[in-house]
């Protein structure tokens, strides 16, 4: 993970500030930085989204491809995650430097989406045991400014909301072989229900309190963090502790309560912005990367 070096006095200043609920940029312990969300930025994907949280910039693209269902779940489709930490983000990611972080994020995303209730995978099935939709979710880290996991989960949810899967119908021949027919209308597609898609909330322990949405400087002062994935109605789907410090069971419980509260507001804010973008329709001016 990209990190900054701080002097002892600077770290002390940050820790004392968090104790008094006034962080360096004036935020409280439970405030997020201003986020910018835009969907449909990559034209050759089935769905895409870009999220800018302070200095953290994430691009997610979702491609829907036809594949064979897994043996243990013959009537469901599935998701595949791949995370690419580009060298644009920080020089540490040059060459194969970003691979470790990339695989850590990908495995976290797999565990977040592991519970069956997050996405209706049965709707991705075309022919049981033969054909199903596989959603390849590709995450690209453009800039690293702290709080990667939260921004990535917001972008994944926005991209899944934006995904349009073409409608197919299965025709049976006289010989019994099945043929898949794509509908002629390119706008005829199915959308995914993302109501139960969780968002990750990272709670970093600094001193005796915990903060949400830590910047790079704050991450340098924190010894342990808790990654919680929360759905919009407050249910947890996964939890992971990172960092070399230890966490008290009582503080874990407090962090979980904060995570639930913050997670619910996060979902409400994201859904509001996605609905607002949707309501602008095709007349929306796409800002993209050159705005």
């Amino acid at each position, binding site marked *: 993970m990209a990190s900054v070096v701080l002097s002892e006095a*600077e770290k002390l*200043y940050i820790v004392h500030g968090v104790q008094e609920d*006034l962080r360096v940029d*004036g935020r409280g312990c439970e405030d997020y930085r201003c986020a910018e969300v835009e969907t449909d930025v990559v034209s050759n994907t089935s769905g895409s989204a870009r999220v800018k949280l302070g200095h953290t910039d994430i691009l997610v693209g979702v491609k829907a491809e036809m594949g064979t269902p897994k043996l243990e779940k013959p009537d469901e489709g599935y998701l595949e995650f791949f995370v690419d930490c580009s060298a644009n983000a920080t020089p540490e990611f040059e060459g194969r430097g970003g691979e470790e972080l990339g695989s850590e994020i990908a495995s976290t995303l797999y565990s977040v989406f592991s519970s069956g209730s997050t996405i209706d995978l049965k709707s991705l099935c075309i022919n049981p045991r033969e054909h199903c939709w596989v959603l390849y979710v590709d995450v690209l880290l453009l800039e690293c400014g702290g709080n990667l996991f939260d921004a990535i989960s917001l972008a994944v949810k926005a991209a899944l909301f934006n995904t349009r899967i073409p409608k197919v119908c299965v025709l049976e021949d006289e010989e019994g072989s099945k043929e898949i027919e794509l509908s002629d209308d390119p706008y005829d597609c199915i959308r995914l229900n993302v109501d139960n898609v969780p968002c990750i909330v990272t709670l970093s322990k600094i001193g005796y309190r915990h903060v949400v949405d830590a910047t790079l400087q704050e991450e340098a002062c924190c010894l342990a963090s808790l990654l919680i994935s929360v759905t919009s109605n407050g249910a947890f789907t996964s939890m992971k502790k990172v960092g070399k410090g230890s966490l008290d069971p009582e503080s874990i419980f407090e962090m979980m309560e904060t995570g639930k509260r*913050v997670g619910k507001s996060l979902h409400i*804010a994201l859904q509001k912005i996605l609905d607002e973008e949707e309501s602008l329709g095709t007349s929306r001016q796409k800002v993209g990367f050159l*705005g």
Partner: protein
Amino acid sequence: MATISMRLPVARKPVGPSASRGGEKHLVAPGDTITTDTGYMRGHGTYLEDEKLIASVAGAVERVNKLVCVKALKTRYNGEVGDIVVGRITEVQQKRWKVETNSRLDSVLLLSSMNLPGGELRRRSAEDELAMRDYLQEGDLISAEVQSIFSDGAVSLHTRSLKYGKLGQGVLVQVSPSLVKRQKTHFHDLPCGASVILGNNGFIWIYPTPEQKDEEAGGFTTNLEPVPLSDREVISRLRNCIVALVTHKLMLFDTSILYCYEASLPHQIKDILKPEVMEEIVLETRQRLLDLEG
């Protein structure tokens, strides 16, 4: 209660011609022809090709009699003797420290250019060399002055005055060096309750004003007392104001920072970083600065 604000991105509006003194600036991008007149001498940021003078960096063209040079907007810090810089120690070597100052090469702080605690003046011994890490460690921030420049462009620093030395508690903001205005003094005690060091290399250090001037300390004893909440609010507000000024590419000097602080008082500290509030504050600051000049 958590406050989370999300928004749709807004395309940057092309900035209208602002009423700046000195008339229109000739802006160039790398590869643009500056002039085809061969009578000019080429300065920094230009090169000669096919009898044409072409810019190699993106910036404004400056012409002094027969010398043409291009001053880039975003560049690494180019040291000049006498500049005040704020730097971070990256390495502790045998008789010197390597300091990161946002320039092309790490700057150098020699042990002999450093003040000993107590202000003693003596030859540096082997014990001093072994105790270097007790004075300055990797990650420490210092304020120093540029003593000289090596032939390869690396800057040599010195802290041979009691106002320079290790920095204590505070906040560092990193901006582009071209946005820091050259002034007589770069150490300011702002009337709003905090002090600021405007390093020429783009590192801005905001810290609580020390109560009494410890002349003997010379910056070696760091004050590790918790900073009171009122001072913290001033420092956070100043930090956000500086970020707002930098986003809108305004020159940073004590008056502009102070005007921006005053313009931001009606807003909450964390709201200053919202794009619409930032624009409003910077517009007001720009207006006051123009009124001051005109």
